[in-house]
């Protein structure tokens, strides 16, 4: 410990160093844990209190998760303000944190102040100042003061350097005319305007560059979207993604492997938007004679069912839907003399899973399904799970429009 002299107060400088010895802002952000204490006192009467404060700070910083602190052993001018003392110590020792402890005697009172500075930007991150009767009763108060400061500093150990303030008004571009845009989300958000002709210039706000900002975009009939972005120092417009409409109806067209000479149409009515829906679909296809020499067989499948989107948020681009239902297939087998046998199969559409990529108005999907035939007498399928030529499940792909 090194003692400074010549002033009516004591200065103690405690530095906690993290992960090495940072030489700049970037290094400071990744600094490690260690500590040093510089101690100076005048008059002598304050020395014992100053020692107590330093000891308390070393102990409390350690308890708060900092590496064990050590005394800063270079001489400093105790008349300098705390911030300059901390800056000088931080510059010389190249540590991340510096705690300045001042202690003085005024008549029969002891006065002290503990301040912790961050080498990242020289900011004061924790401080406490108190006065007490200069006796033994001051010692618990000093412990308490050290505890408070150490805990407050520990809470900010993960802080990063703030960016420079923006000098421009943030501009948004969006395809959703009429959508309201607010900074922040939830009840604390602040409305900044409405998208008009694809754009919005927000009122000036003193945001810092490279600091994440949340802009909440909302519009009737659409899912509210919270868009997070980090503005740069230059005035670049922020592109807001198109809002996803709340779907009530959808109509799709597609085709199925093994049923490529045909078309499937599917209608969904959403009981709850983008969540639970009823579906009805019809697929017509021709089964061609593999060796030629015969008319194709005509199949028509009607499906009715219930489905739901699972796992992912409702406005998600990628969605997984699953459901169940019933399937009836009418088959007309042509004979040489005209329409031949008419057959009807009834099946349980046991499970289908649809993988979908959604845009605001359209979506693309691939659907797998496993169905179980009841094997009714009028049908062609035996009782049991459907078995495609080489696969246990049918695959359908297509596109849907939504409104």
């Amino acid at each position: 410990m090194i003692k400074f002299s010549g002033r009516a107060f004591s200065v103690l400088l405690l530095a906690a160093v993290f992960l090495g010895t940072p030489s700049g802002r970037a290094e400071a952000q990744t600094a490690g844990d260690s500590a040093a204490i510089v101690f100076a006192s005048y008059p002598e009467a304050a020395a014992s209190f100053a020692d107590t404060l330093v000891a308390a700070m070393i102990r409390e910083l350690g308890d708060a998760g900092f590496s064990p602190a050590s005394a800063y052993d270079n001489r400093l001018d105790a008349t300098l303000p705390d911030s300059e003392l901390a800056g000088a110590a931080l510059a010389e020792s190249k540590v991340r944190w510096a705690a300045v402890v001042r202690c003085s005697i005024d008549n029969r009172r002891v006065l002290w102040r503990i301040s912790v500075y961050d080498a990242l930007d020289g900011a004061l991150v924790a401080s406490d100042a108190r006065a007490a009767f200069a006796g033994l009763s001051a010692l618990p108060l000093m412990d308490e003061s050290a505890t408070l400061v150490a805990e407050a500093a520990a809470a900010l150990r993960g802080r990063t350097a703030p960016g420079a303030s923006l000098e421009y008004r943030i501009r948004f571009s969006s395809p959703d005319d009429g959508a309201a845009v607010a900074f922040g989300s939830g009840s604390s958000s602040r409305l900044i305007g409405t998208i008009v002709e694809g754009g919005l210039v927000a009122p000036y706000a003193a945001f810092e560059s490279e600091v994440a900002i949340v802009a909440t975009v909302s519009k009737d009939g659409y899912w509210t979207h919270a868009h997070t972005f980090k503005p740069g120092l230059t005035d670049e417009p922020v592109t807001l993604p198109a809002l996803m409409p709340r779907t009530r109806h959808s109509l799709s067209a597609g085709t199925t492997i093994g049923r490529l000479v045909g078309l499937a149409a599917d209608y969904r009515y959403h009981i709850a938007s983008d969540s639970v829906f009823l579906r009805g679909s019809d697929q017509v296809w021709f089964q061609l004679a593999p060796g030629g020499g015969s008319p194709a067989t005509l199949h028509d499948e009607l499906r009715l069912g219930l489905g739901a989107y699972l796992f992912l948020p409702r406005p998600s681009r990628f969605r997984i839907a699953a459901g169940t239902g019933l399937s009836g297939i009418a088959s007309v087998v042509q004979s040489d003399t005209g329409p031949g046998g008419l057959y009807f199969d009834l099946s349980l559409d046991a499970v289908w899973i649809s993988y979908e990529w959604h845009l605001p108005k359209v979506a693309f999907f691939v659907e797998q399904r496993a169905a179980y035939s009841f094997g009714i007498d009028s049908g062609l399928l035996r009782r049991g799970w459907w078995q495609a030529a080489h696969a246990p499940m049918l695959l359908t792909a297509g596109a849907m429009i939504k409104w």
Partner: protein
Amino acid sequence: MVTSRSVAALVPATLLALTAFLASSCDWLSGDIFPSWLPYVEARADLAATATEAGIGPLRSLDTVEFVNFIDPADDVDKSKILAYLKGLNGEALVAFEPAGMAASENWARIPGSIPLYNGLGSRIIQTPTGFIAGQLSFSMDDLTADPVPWAGGIPMDSIVLAMGSPVNYYVIRAGYDTTVMDNQFKIQVYDNAFALEITEVRSIDLPDTTKYLVDAQYYGNADLSAGMFRILVRTETAVYAFSLKSDASFIIAAGDPESMGPMPMSESRAWLTADGVVTMNRSSETYLARYAYDWTVAKTTPTDLLQITGDTEAYQIMSFDPSGSWWYLYDQLTQHLYALRTWW
């Protein structure tokens, strides 16, 4: 709670799974849930219901299906029938189906303790100029409601019998290895309508193997043998060979070596002669029927066309091909449905 980060992780994982799924499914591009042969179906019969109706109880198996072509010379009416021999839990029955629609028109049941005449009913069916013989009973196509007549002839197990002419002659055809002369031989014995032996003719047939079975035999031509040919199908352990022998009105078979065609690969002992070629059944990784159009000029044959069979292939039983090459019959053992199908060529 699903977060945007977990969504981001889910998307590539799902797309990867889908890609793998599709990549592993190249063979699936041609397959639907319905069997490949469905477009060829002309009609279907529910044999379970037929067996019950015939009084033989639950159906156990289907032994024979033959198309019997018959145009009644009296009124030029097509009275052709599809005959099926069913075995049930309580007996056996021969059922005649109408070719169009496969409605059962007649049935004769061989049930213990029932009509003694039908005890002679059997599953081996020989088409005759006036009808057919099933087992030891002769039926007239002109009037299927009439009682059948006991048939005095016999059919050796290793032979195929053709009945032609008026009065009818029976041609009992065999193929085998004669250990006396150390030669593969085709033998035809002609019996008159009283089943008295009239002629026996033998020809050597050229086969690379001595293990053989007669699979099928047909005669194509005039009933008096003045212009026609006998065709036989002989199989070894792995292949089938077709032979063609010209008929002769006086000597049954014309002089000269028979023409041959083969080998035609087959994995089952099922092959059929049709007017349009030989059809073989093959089961390997895929099940298919192969047709070999007749070409007696090449030593090794390749299929003229194939029909891949999809669906419950293990449950399908190809029963027969009509010698004219127009129809074939498939039995689905799971559903107990018999299908009449058009040929694909």
